[in-house]
């Protein structure tokens, strides 16, 4: 049933149905209790841990989203995405045939061309943040245009931000049509909708926003821009993954999940992966259904794998910068 390699049918979205989400109830204490249990109930050790961390690399959207990004900076990032582990380590682990790389590189629109050039010939997606990222408060037509610009510039994936005010004001239908118009604008490029979970109030709102975005045709729902005061957390992610499960059961379409910001070490990444496996199953541990929006995570994973291979901890400076 859950063939890991089954070809994913894109979520086409559904009509707007408020009955699906209007009665959603979320109990924060119970959600937090569950989150605290994942790593107590499931162990991933030694070879398994190395394998899971390798998988984690393949789930990374290696990201740079800074005002001071330059072509050179982006080029370096792309090199790292292509060669996430140094050659010696790859050899020691005997995983040359895997050609391990990150899932994607994620940049601002203006960095797309530099990135595209660097990634040429590699099976790494190019993602652009869009729609007035991170606040999403520029005029709607411009936001839609921005998506089209990025798609034209070669983006395979568009990470859009939703209008938080639609959630806070309860204008779910407006949110639906906004995201739907983004989906239309992105065409073949896959759409990741950033909920900015740190800015939309409570867990019930997060659950409802997740449902509305999926109805509007999101390929992924994503926690945060990385710029909010609170970014990805396990409780938020549990709520979102439960919504993905409900949506799948309702429509038969699988939607992906991307925690972003706050996942910066191997231990945390594993917690998220355990959660995905427990809540959604093994199928959701593939790059078409899970991503980590991260920049420093890779460095930590590399050190852990080095430790697995050599038995000793490595220093940060021995691994190439992203």
């Amino acid at each position, binding site marked *: 049933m859950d063939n890991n390699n089954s070809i994913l049918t894109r979520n086409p979205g559904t009509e707007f149905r408020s009955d699906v989400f209007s*009665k959603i109830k979320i109990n924060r204490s119970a959600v937090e209790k569950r989150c605290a249990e994942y790593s107590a109930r499931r162990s*991933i*050790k030694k070879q398994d*841990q190395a*394998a899971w961390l390798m*998988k984690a690399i393949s789930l990374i959207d290696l990201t740079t989203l800074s005002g001071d990004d330059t072509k050179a900076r982006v080029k370096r990032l792309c090199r790292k995405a292509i060669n996430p582990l140094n050659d010696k380590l790859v050899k020691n682990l005997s995983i040359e045939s895997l050609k391990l790389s990150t899932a994607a590189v994620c940049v601002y629109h203006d960095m797309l061309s530099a990135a595209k050039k660097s990634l040429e010939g590699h099976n790494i997606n190019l993602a652009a943040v869009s729609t007035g990222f991170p606040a999403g408060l520029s005029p709607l037509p411009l936001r839609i245009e921005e998506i089209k610009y990025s798609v034209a510039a070669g983006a395979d994936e568009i990470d859009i931000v939703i209008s938080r005010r639609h959630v806070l004001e309860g204008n779910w239908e407006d949110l639906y049509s906004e995201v739907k118009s983004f989906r239309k604008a992105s065409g073949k490029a896959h759409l990741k909708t950033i909920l900015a979970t740190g800015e939309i109030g409570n867990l019930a709102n997060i659950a409802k926003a997740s449902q509305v975005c999926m109805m509007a045709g999101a390929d992924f729902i994503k926690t945060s821009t990385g710029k909010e005061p609170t970014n990805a957390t396990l409780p938020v992610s549990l709520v979102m993954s439960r919504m993905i499960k409900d949506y799948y059961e309702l429509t038969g379409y699988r939607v992906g999940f991307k925690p972003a910001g706050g996942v910066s070490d191997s231990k945390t990444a594993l917690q998220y992966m355990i959660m995905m496996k427990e809540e959604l199953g093994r199928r959701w541990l593939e790059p078409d259904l899970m991503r980590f929006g991260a920049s420093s995570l890779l460095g930590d994973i590399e050190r852990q794998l080095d430790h697995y291979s050599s038995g000793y901890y490595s220093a940060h400076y021995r691994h190439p910068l992203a």
Partner: protein
Amino acid sequence: MTLMDSFKDLEYSQAMESDAIAIEWLKKNKNRFGQYIDGKFISQKNAKLIDVTSPNDSTLLAKIETSDNNQIEKAVEAAIRSQKSWFDMGGHERAKILYSLARSLQKHARLAAVLETLDNGKPIRESRDADIPLAIRHFYYHAGWAQLQNSELSEYEPVGVAAQIIPWNFPLLMLAWKVAPAIAMGNSIILKPAENTPLTAMLFSHLCHDAGVPNGVINIINGGAETGATLAAHPNVDKVAFTGSTAVGREIRKSTAGQGKKLTLELGGKSAFIVFDDADLDSAVEGLVDSIWFNQGEVCCAGSRLLVQSSIEEKLHKKIKKRMEKLRHGRSLDKSIDIGSLVSDTQFKRVNSIVNDGLTKGGKLFQSGCPLPKNNYYPPSLITDIDSSHPLSQEEIFGPVLISMSFRTQSEAIDLANNTRYGLSASIWSENINRAMDVAPKIKAGVIWINSHNKFDASCGFGGVKESGFGREGGKEGLYEYLKPKKFVVGKTMATKKAPKKHDNSQIDRTLKFYIGGKQVRPDGGYSVPVYNSDSSLEVWVGSGNRKDIRNAVSAACKAEGWNSQSAHNRAQILYYFAENLSIRKNEWVERLQINCGLTNNMAVKEFNESVSRLFSYAAWTDKYDGLVHNAPYRGVTLALPEAVGVIAQIAPDLQPLISCISLIAPAIAMGNRVIFIPGISNANIALELTQVIETSDIPPGVINIVSGDQNLLAEQLAGHAEVDSLWCWTTPSTVSLIESTSIENLKRLWCNKDNDRDWLIKKQSEGLEFLRQSTEIKNIWTPYGD
């Protein structure tokens, strides 16, 4: 398997906790344990041995020696010898030792966890994250009460020697629940661990030794049910605390009947897990994992009865089944599992046969397909399509087996939840605080969890009602189980029989009827008995009640349940009115007391005034006997609410008939109970004459019922009546014995006293908190919050 394979599979690891530390410790003790008595480890060559095996793989872990009667005797002697000096040592010194026990357990936490898992079969994750930390916390918490005893509980003294018998499902945790409060309050104890899980208790005995617990304060003896029964019945044991099955609880009640011992019984359950349509369903499903699939379902308070609102039944069942598929069964020492092994082969067979027998009477079984190791691993199970009359919905299974029924409305949910002999716990799943807080008080159980299940802490009382036992463990409420009021100095309470004024014999011959359901009724049997004055002249005839009169009285009391839901303010107003109406009849009552009881005018005035004052006191207490908010370590509040016990029967003393009658009835009805009052026969008319005051005081019918007659006979009927929730008595040892043995089956709460144990005129002895506590049960409502 290569790294590439693992990369493809992304499976969890088997992460076995090493058992080396525990095996080594067992070896160090030559895999054999005797008794720990008077600070010494005693071993007998020719002792009868019990094999302690690991349920995981049936390996023999150790042999324990069954203690013989001589050793039980020695343990009791040691406990008696040490108790006084232990108490006299003072709270601070005791606090230091409890603190040191906590530290010592903490230092050996890993050994304790591994030992527990080897011995019991529970997952190492649970012994490591739940059993052991909670046990440690219990000693810390009660170290604090030892420290505060002198300032906070100065009116009480320790009960003395406590016999404590604990079960196999949480061996060390149950030890902590029993030992910590007992020794904190200055008692000495003799503990008997379950014979199939004694190992952590043996470890604990070594820690006691190292922590400087004075010899004889803690004694631990080994053996089976027989040893437990002998210990409990020992005449020099003042208190028996037992946790285990309802059947064994009855045995203990039986073996101690007639001894008038203080008793705490924490017994079985069939707790409801109630899911309303406005619940967070995914969280409720996880709640079930914490509830019925915690400790393999071998938990007295497991939410084994799922009650789900019909509109979401299908949806929830689907979610549960999906979740069950994700549960992992495995070797108990594996950190990657959810469910370990049942405690023994016997338990496995028991669960298996209850389920199989049950299924022959209907029901649909769903079991997850998780692969099971050999030995005693029972699969997580869900049984649907059964109703309340099905044996599986009534009987405690004590395994990972959940049964499910649906309800239509909130009131039906409450009815179904209460439709059980048990009353230990329940959880309520709803995001509507109005609903949750409305339902919580209506469930007859000692512990209620809102949107959670199986939360425990030393600061919150745990314990049940109905056949789940009585008494609380944990919290301030749990301390009273190991305390008694300081001894009263009882002066001469019987009035001297001076020659009274001649009674006016010209008045019409009177027969006082019973007072039942707000009406004066004739005795069913048509019998009456005379009541004589102190000068031996005839005062009046009173009815002599029988089984049917008791039946009618209890039935009236049950019907008057609405009294409990009246506001405390209203009940207080009615008690004040009662006092007011009594006070205007002062002359009549003073005369009656003189003639009937031979009191001097002064004494009669004093008893009368004191009676009015006492009614005022309880009217005052009605809206002031507040609950507590416990400070447990979670984001939420635990409300400890004093709730009415229900129907209380009172076998009253002969002496001081007016003030003792008021002293018993007033606190009970103040707290919302309904009373069946059985006056002492020699002054029975006093209570019956009160009827006229009661009738004019707006007290609803059935709240107070008075039946006179042969106290022994009536007491037996009341003790045997399952709808009487509690029985108080001031009576002879033979009646106490009769009451205790009659209530073995229904496990009624009893408060037995000697008939002349106090002077009812003295406030300190006869009014206040002791009476209010007996009139209430503490219900702990756990309320996590956060949005």
